[in-house]
């Protein structure tokens, strides 16, 4: 299992992969590797998604953030809080693809501590060969034998003989029976032959090794209790001492079975050096386990949903192609909403019906769509595989609707369904995802939601509004995008907006003199607005006005109204009026009140 670097969104949250959904968020979480705290990862947010567990530190989020793919997670254990110890969730990595299960080797290390030093010296020469991803690649030549062309005695191929790297200069041991050196070709052929047969099941070579590994797997405790484990020789079956590399009797190599586990054990678990190296944990390997320490609650829910995510294995669907859409489109041309139910990424226009009628129509569309999906999927096996993704999703929702949920009442199911539909609409955090009672977390997540929503280039909310919009407008637009579910109260909204500055998000809330609250990009400043005004005024002085004017337009230009400014900069009129007054306040503009209303001039009164 590896810590993977994370991409963060503008709101400093993990960037979700396509199809990945956020399941839970919890703040005030610390990260442990094994038993040790990882420095700089002690106060942050833990995000549980359908694919990953992500950790984002509260301070310097971009520097300290990591993720772990759930597909590499074996299991998660819950550990309740005790006195000053916070509740923790321990995540165990899956055993490596290789046969060497690190967990079984810890026992072996314990039992053979007396020989550990000697072993590490012996194996130091082989070690580089096993640091790669596949430690199993090297044992190949172990059980190979070459037949002496003189006396036809079966000699073992030396353990350090590697067909890939061997050259003509490589020293070869003489035949054990007649003492004649073999030709290189003979040994090479034998080694390659042995390697190729090993890949297919090789009964004669395998038993000792598989036996060695599988015994602790089946009943690990009992095998650990035996003080010294004998290792059977693969050729002559003599029970050798485990620290030996070659058989005492026949000289066959025992290397793979006995040595490597201890190599892993000694170099990883006990040494403090890797720990410090891993304090910069990006891309580093997790050998043992990691722990999430929940200092602010949320542990139970996190654990439940983590278990759920591990069971669902959504990541398996990542590569499944979506159901071909055209057939459905032609079948239901009157239901533009049918396509929209498929997922958030389908850009089909949503039906505009509202209220009960809208809900009923959406339900109808969903049912029609489900019918189509099921109908198409079960036509033949290929279609079923193609639409696996949707069928799984459908099965899940059907299961929920039919009340398979054991403990939950109707209300929790409803909220789940609701929050799901909200997630389908592109919103990420809902109150359901957060443990109840953590109001501040809800607000900060809402705040991040808003920031993401605003800075999302696909929607371009802020761009469309000329980089600035009033908070009330934003509230209306945002709630509308939630489609009537999980609506946000104005007070929550304002408090979330006030958190932007604290959370260092790229959006800021600004209060105009009149008290109007607006939202704008963090890097947008009054100076920039003023420069825009000045450029505009300059332009007005160059371009002659449409009608003849009594004043000297080449000197004074023309007056602008809030409406004109709103139109030009795509602001709302309220914002434009405020910006104009801001510029007036800075002495850049001056006002003219007349029967036509309030107009603003470039300030020629101050010279």
């Amino acid at each position, binding site marked *: 299992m590896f810590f993977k670097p994370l991409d963060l969104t503008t709101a400093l949250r993990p960037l979700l992969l396509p199809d990945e959904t956020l399941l839970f968020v919890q703040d005030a979480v610390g990260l442990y590797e094994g038993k040790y705290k990882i420095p700089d990862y002690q106060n942050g947010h833990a995000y549980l998604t359908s694919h990953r567990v992500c950790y984002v530190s509260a301070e310097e989020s971009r520097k300290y953030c990591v993720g772990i793919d759930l597909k590499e997670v074996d299991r998660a254990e819950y550990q309740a809080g005790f006195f000053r110890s916070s509740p923790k969730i321990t995540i165990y990595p899956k055993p490596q693809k290789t046969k060497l299960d690190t967990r079984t080797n810890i026992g072996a290390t314990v039992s053979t501590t007396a020989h550990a030093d000697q072993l590490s010296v012996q194996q130091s020469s082989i070690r580089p060969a096993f640091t790669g991803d596949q430690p199993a690649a090297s044992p190949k030549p172990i059980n190979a034998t070459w037949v002496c062309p003189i006396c036809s005695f079966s000699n073992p191929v030396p353990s350090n003989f590697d067909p890939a790297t061997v050259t003509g200069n490589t020293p070869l041991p003489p035949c054990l029976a007649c003492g004649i050196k073999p030709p290189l070709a003979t040994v090479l052929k034998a080694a390659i032959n042995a390697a190729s047969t090993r890949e297919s099941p090789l009964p004669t070579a395998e038993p000792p090794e598989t036996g060695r590994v599988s015994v602790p797997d089946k009943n690990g405790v009992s095998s650990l209790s035996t003080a010294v484990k004998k290792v059977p020789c693969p050729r002559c079956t003599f029970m050798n001492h485990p620290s030996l590399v070659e058989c005492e009797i026949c000289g066959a190599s025992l290397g793979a079975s006995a040595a490597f586990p201890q190599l892993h054990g000694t170099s990883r678990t006990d040494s403090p050096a890797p720990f410090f190296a891993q304090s910069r944990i990006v891309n580093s390997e997790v050998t043992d386990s990691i722990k999430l320490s929940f200092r602010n609650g949320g542990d139970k829910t996190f654990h439940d949903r983590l278990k759920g995510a591990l069971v669902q294995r959504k990541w398996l669907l990542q590569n499944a192609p979506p159901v071909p859409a055209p057939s459905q489109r032609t079948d239901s041309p009157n239901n533009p909403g049918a396509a929209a139910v498929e997922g958030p990424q389908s850009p089909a226009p949503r039906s505009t019906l509202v209220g009960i009628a809208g809900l009923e129509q959406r339900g109808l569309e969903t049912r029609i769509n489900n019918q189509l999906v099921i109908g198409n999927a079960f036509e033949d096996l290929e279609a079923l595989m193609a639409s696996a993704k949707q069928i799984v999703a459908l099965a899940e929702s059907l299961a929920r609707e039919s009340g398979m949920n054991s403990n939950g009442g109707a209300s929790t199911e409803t909220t789940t369904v609701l929050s799901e539909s909200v997630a389908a609409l592109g919103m990420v955090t809902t109150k359901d995802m957060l443990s109840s009672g953590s109001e501040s977390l809800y607000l900060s997540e809402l705040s991040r939601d808003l920031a993401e929503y605003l800075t999302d280039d696909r929607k371009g909310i802020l761009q469309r509004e000329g980089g600035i919009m009033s908070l009330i407008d934003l509230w209306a637009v945002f709630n509308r995008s939630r489609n009537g579910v999980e609506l946000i109260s104005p007070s929550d909204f304002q408090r979330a907006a006030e958190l932007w500055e604290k959370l260092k998000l790229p959006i800021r809330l600004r209060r105009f003199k009149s008290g109007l609250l607006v939202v704008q990009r963090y890097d947008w400043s009054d100076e920039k607005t003023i420069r825009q005004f000045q450029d505009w005024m300059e332009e007005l002085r160059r371009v002659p006005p449409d009608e003849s004017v009594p004043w000297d337009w080449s000197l004074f230009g023309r007056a602008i109204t809030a409406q004109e400014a709103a139109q030009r900069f795509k602001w709302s009129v309220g914002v434009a009026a405020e910006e104009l007054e801001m510029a007036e306040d800075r002495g850049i503009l001056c006002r003219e*009140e*007349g029967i036509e209303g309030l107009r603003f001039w470039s300030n*020629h*009164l*101050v010279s």
Partner: protein
Amino acid sequence: MSASTAATAAPASSTSFVFPSTYNFPAFFTPQPNSTTRQSQLRKWSSLIQSWCRHHRIYRLSIIEAIDSPLFHNATLRKRLDLAEARTIVDWMAKKEEEGGGGQRAEWIEGPSASSGAKSKNLAWIWWRRPEEWADVLVDWIDATGQRGVVLTVFELVQGEATVSQEFHGMDHDVMMKALNVLVKRGKASVFGNEGEEGVKIF
């Protein structure tokens, strides 16, 4: 525009008054909320009023009458200063500079109707030259013509042929008396004679 720089424009009384460029700026007629802009606006109005009065040899300005004159009414822009705003400007002019005003370039005159009690604020002295400045001008002229210690009548000073070329020629009698009183206070002149036929001796 201070009074001294305006002096160069003063003799051209026969030509029509040239308004400053800001006079054609529509926003000039709206009171500005920004204090910096406001100060600048008041200063511009003050200098406009002063140069207007100097041009037309006006010493006391009736606000009511002026409100319809080109001074406060820009016919081309169809913009005018309303009465309250005009009074605010004169108020500002009357204040001392230390108080954030226009340096006592105006002074309200208690009109004959002031018996009603309230300040009418209709008529104001516009000091495009303060009495002290007039006194200096007088002394300079006396010096230049070598008339120290010579007794002159006030009528001579204001209407006499010798002063035709001077700025104070044709000056308001009250203003002349104020200027002479300044000199008396400085101990540089003595005024004698009855009301209306005063004589003055500057030394």
